[in-house]
């Protein structure tokens, strides 16, 4: 008897290795189902790398890790052409970007020109080395990490690069109980490796199923309204740390792009599929709204001077749009 594999099997397999961090696991799966990429922001030691490695192992796919450093070159990522003296011709050496799951660790440690080397790969799913373009494997998911605490020697990601990420997840510390579990689980010398629970073909089939998930007209309007309010938030009130009432629009330089609209719809479809439904609900949209919008909104200096968290502003904007 053949048992059809479901995305929820993958989630269960990852949960066996990673304690807590349901948000990270769900983000990785949504990126996989939506054919997108994820930016993970959080302090070191929160299982970001383990999550990415486990995902690749559970899919029986290739996994590559690229440690971004200030001296990294674009060719270190995409590959280069080397002159072969015996053949008297150039040979192409493919870089570590050619994998199903690529972990771009501490992506903001490399200068913008290196980060931009990822742009073509992330958007076009191909890279150009010399005169030749090379198609990347399918599925292809970039998981990039950023450390928010250590800003010395880092470079801000270009806006165009940020927009390429389907979602940005803030990875938080585990709870006390979760940390106790981590202690028990990883105290053993030989931790259980992640079992392969799905194939790359399964992922492609899930992606097709996610694409077919129904998004009602009411939900489409809700999505558009959510993105539109990031561009005109004059009527959204936010409290500063000193309890002063501010307008969200005063803190924002630019709102989310239409790519955010598409991202919200993709992610809502993926979440519905993860939940076993073939139609999306307002809950799906609301659940993915903050991760899909937070890196696409340009906040100005007043966010820092008024001591307001970006997530507080985003939550206020989301709350200002009634769900259908």
């Amino acid at each position: 008897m053949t048992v059809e594999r479901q995305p929820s099997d993958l989630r269960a397999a990852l949960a066996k290795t990673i304690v807590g961090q349901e948000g990270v696991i769900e983000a990785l799966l949504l990126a996989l189902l939506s054919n997108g990429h994820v930016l993970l922001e959080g302090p070191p030691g929160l299982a970001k790398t383990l999550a990415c490695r486990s995902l690749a192992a559970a899919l029986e796919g290739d996994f590559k890790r690229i440690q971004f450093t200030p001296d990294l070159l674009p060719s270190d990522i995409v590959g280069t052409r080397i002159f072969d003296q015996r053949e008297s011709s150039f040979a192409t050496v493919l870089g570590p970007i050619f994998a199903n799951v690529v972990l771009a660790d501490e992506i903001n440690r490399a200068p913008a020109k290196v980060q931009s080397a990822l742009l073509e790969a992330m958007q076009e799913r191909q890279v150009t080395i010399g005169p030749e373009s090379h198609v990347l494997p399918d599925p292809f998911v970039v998981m990039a990490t950023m450390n928010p605490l250590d800003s010395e020697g880092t470079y801000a990601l270009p806006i165009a690069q940020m927009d390429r990420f389907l979602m940005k997840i803030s990875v938080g510390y585990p709870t006390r109980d979760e940390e106790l579990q981590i202690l028990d689980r990883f105290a053993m010398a030989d931790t259980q490796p992640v079992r392969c629970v799905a194939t790359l073909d399964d992922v492609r089939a899930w992606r097709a199923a996610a694409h077919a998930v129904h998004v009602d007209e009411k939900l489409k309007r809700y999505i558009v309204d959510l993105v539109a309010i990031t561009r005109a938030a004059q009527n959204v009130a936010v409290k500063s740390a000193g309890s002063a009432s501010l307008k969200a629009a005063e803190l924002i330089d630019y709102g989310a792009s239409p790519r955010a609209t598409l991202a919200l719809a993709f992610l809502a479809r993926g979440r519905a599929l993860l939940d076993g439904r073939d139609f999306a609900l307002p809950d799906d949209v609301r659940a993915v709204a903050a991760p899909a919008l937070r890196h696409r909104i340009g906040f100005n200096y007043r966010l820092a001077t008024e001591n307001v968290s970006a997530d507080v502003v985003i939550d206020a904007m989301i709350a200002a749009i009634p769900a259908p």
Partner: protein
Amino acid sequence: MARKLTAPLILVVVAFLASAGAGRGQMLQRLTVEAFVLSADTMQPQVDEPFHVVVTLHVRERVSAINNLQLPMLAQLELLGDERQTVTDPRGTQYREVVTVVVHAAGRFTIAPATLQAIDARDGKPKQWFTNDLPLSVRSSPTRIASGVAAGLFSQIARILAALIWLALLVGAALLAIFLLRRRAPVAPVPAPVAEPVSYQRVLSDAQRRRHIIEDALLVLRAERTRSAAVRVRAAVWRVIGAPEGETLGDVLRRPGCSEGPLRDLLVALERSAFTYDEDLAAAVEDACAALERYAESLT
């Protein structure tokens, strides 16, 4: 009571539901509710004879319009007209809505309370007020009885009765004329008895109120198995449980008493019928009807 719904009736009910939902998007007003009453010009209407259902609201504030006032779903009735009047004076605002309706089948049924959502100006908290409900006993029309039994005999009796009534009226008029002629001094007018204001805080049976609304919603959804009807029924059920507009199903399920049992099933089924794809709509509405039935039964 046999509930037969005709096509025009359904359209009217659905239109009425739509008008009931129209105010949902408005901000809550800050009001001091002094009276909120549902009444009818008769509690024993006759089949096919129009009568009036009246919602009266008095608030201390002077406002130009009343928002977020929801009339009950009048699924058993055919709506013939709706007239609203808002009168402002130094004592506040009197809102009166007169709905002209007609019922097509005899029996007993109860019109569920009208509701008002507002910020209570006394303590600044958002609240929901309910009117009384309205039990009606619908009688068969005398003309129908006559045609069904002995039309000839009845018409003869009717003629005699009419003659007697005319005679009584003539005698009454004569007595009244004599009385008026003999009256010398004007009599001080007797003040009209002031009706005891119905307290807006009157505690209604919550289960009873919910059941009426759910039964009406079931009638509506069975009669019109469309997406828009499902969306309106979903909104009506959310109002019944006090869920404000703009929440998601997840928010509503986190409310006390909503996370389990028939109510949870109902909320999930209505969400599906509101958002599923067209090919699944018929099955989703069927499930929602079954869930409405189960929930109504659980309220007994």
